[in-house]
C-alpha cells in the first residue's frame, strides 16, 4: 500500500538545517544562493501541504472500503 504520509516534517527539518547554516554563516555566497533557492522550494512544498488539496489523498480515503 502506498504511503501518503506527509513528508512535511522532513521538509521542515531541512529548512531548519538551512536556516542553521545561514545563521551560523557557514555558507559562501554561491552556497547561500543555492540554499535559499532550495529553501524557497521547501517552503512552497510545506505551504502546499498546509493549504492545497491533494486529490490523490482524497481519492484514496474515499475508496477505502466501508465495513
Amino acid at each position, binding site marked *: *500500500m*502506498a*504511503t*501518503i*504520509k*506527509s513528508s*512535511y*516534517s522532513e521538509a*521542515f527539518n531541512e*529548512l*531548519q538545517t*538551512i*536556516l542553521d547554516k*545561514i*545563521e551560523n*554563516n557557514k*555558507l559562501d*555566497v554561491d552556497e*547561500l544562493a543555492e540554499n*535559499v533557492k532550495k*529553501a524557497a522550494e521547501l*517552503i512552497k512544498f*510545506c*505551504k502546499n*501541504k*498546509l*493549504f*492545497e*488539496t*491533494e486529490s490523490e*489523498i*482524497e481519492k*484514496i*480515503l474515499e475508496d*477505502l472500503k466501508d*465495513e
Partner: protein
Amino acid sequence: MNHIENSPVSLVELNGQIRKAIKSSFGAIWLITEISEMTVNYSGHCYLEFIQKENESEKIIARARGTIWNQNFRIIKQYFETSAGRPFSKGIKVMVKVTVEFHEVYGLSLNVTDIEPTYTLGEIALRKQRIIEKLKAEGIIDKNKTVELPIIPNKIAVISSITAAGFEDFTDQLINNTSGYRFYLKLFPAVMQGNETENSIINQLKRIYTYHNLFDVVVIIRGGGSQADLDCFNNYNLASAVAHFPLPVLTGIGHEQDDSVVDIVAHTRLKTPTAVAEYLIDRLNNAENDLNEVEEKIISNSQEIISLKKTLIKEMVYKLNNNLQKQISAENKSISFITSVYYSLLKNNFYRIRLSLGKAGILLSQKTRGVIARKRNELYFFNKQLVSDSKYSLDKAGSTLILNEQKLELSDPANILKKGFSLTFFQGELVTDSEQLSAGDEIETIFTKGKSKSIIK
C-alpha cells in the same frame, strides 16, 4: 405414601404464609449488588435484575428481581445521575435500600426505596484504578504518548458515531477552518456508548491499523454532556488497544469532570470534539507560524549576509583602490624621481660631454692651430730653404749660365734673344720662376734690343 401429619394447604395459602414470614423477618436493608438488567414499563415502573458475581471467576452466584415503583424511580434516577455524573443503567454496581417483598403471584422481589450514589462512584473509581494499575504494570500506560504527533496532523481517522452531533460539529469545524488549512477526514463509525462500545471501537481500530500509513492521527470523539456514560471507556481491552496503537490517538469523548482510562492512555486527552478540532487547527497554525518564522529568518539572514558581503566587497574595492592609488602615486613619485635623476644625470652628462667636446674643440683647434702654425712654419722654413737653396742653385746656375752665356754669346748669344727670348731680372737677379715674384715687384726685362722695367700685377 406416608401419613399426612398436617392437613394440606393451597398454593395461595403457602405463598401467603411465606409473605407473612418474610415480612416479619426483614425490615429495610441496605444492599450492595450489581444491576444486570433494567427495563422501564409504560407506567414508569422500573424492573431490575440484581446479580452477584464471584470475585475472580465472574460466575453469577446470586440473582434476584427488583422493582422501583414509578414515583420512587423518578426521584432515585435523578438523584443518582446528578450525584454520580453517570446514567442510572444496567451494568453498574449500586448500594440500594430495599425491602424484601413476596407476592403470591409474582414471587420474591426487592423493592428499591433509596440509593447511595457515592458507592457506585467509588466502585467505578476502584475498577478504573485497577485497570490503570494493570496498564502501568504492563508498561503500556504511556505508550501512545510516545508516538510522535506529526507537525501537521491533517489526515485524520475519526472514530465516532455517524449520527452524533459531535461528529458533525467536528467535521464542520475542521473543513471550514478560517485559516484555510486542508484536512482530510475519514469516518470509522462505531457505537460510542453502552456495552457494545468496547468491541465496536476495537474493530474500527483494527481497520485503521490496516491503513495506518494513510493517516497522521486517530481521533475518538463523542458528543454529549456530563451525563454521558464513561464506563465503556473505563475498559481494559479498549485502553490497551489505544495504548498499543501505532498512530497518536486523540480523545474528545465529551466528559467535563472525569477522565476515562481511554483518555488516560490516549496521546492527548481533550474534553470535547470541538476541543479536538481546535487542537488540530492550532497544531497546523503553529506549523504555519514556525514555517513563516523560518522563512522570515532565512530571508533576513540571507539579506544580512548579502549586504555584509556587499559592504565587504565595497571595502575591499575601496582598499584596493586606495592601495592602487597609493602605489600608483608612489610609482609616479619614484618614476618622476628616477626621471629627474636620469634627467639631471643626463643633463650632467650632456654638460660634461659638451664641456669635454668644447674642451676637445678648443684643444683640437689649439692643436690644429699649433700644427697648422708649425706646418706653416715648417713650410715657411722649407720655402725659405727652398728659396735659398734655389737661389743658390740658381745663383750657381746663373753664374754657370752667365759663363755659358758668355760662351754662348760668343757662339750665338744674340740668336737666342733674336728668337724673341727675353731675360727677366728682379733686383738684379734672373727670374726664372713666377713664384719668385709678388705683385708690385719691379722687374727688368732684357730683350735683344734694349731693356724695360715693369711692375708685376
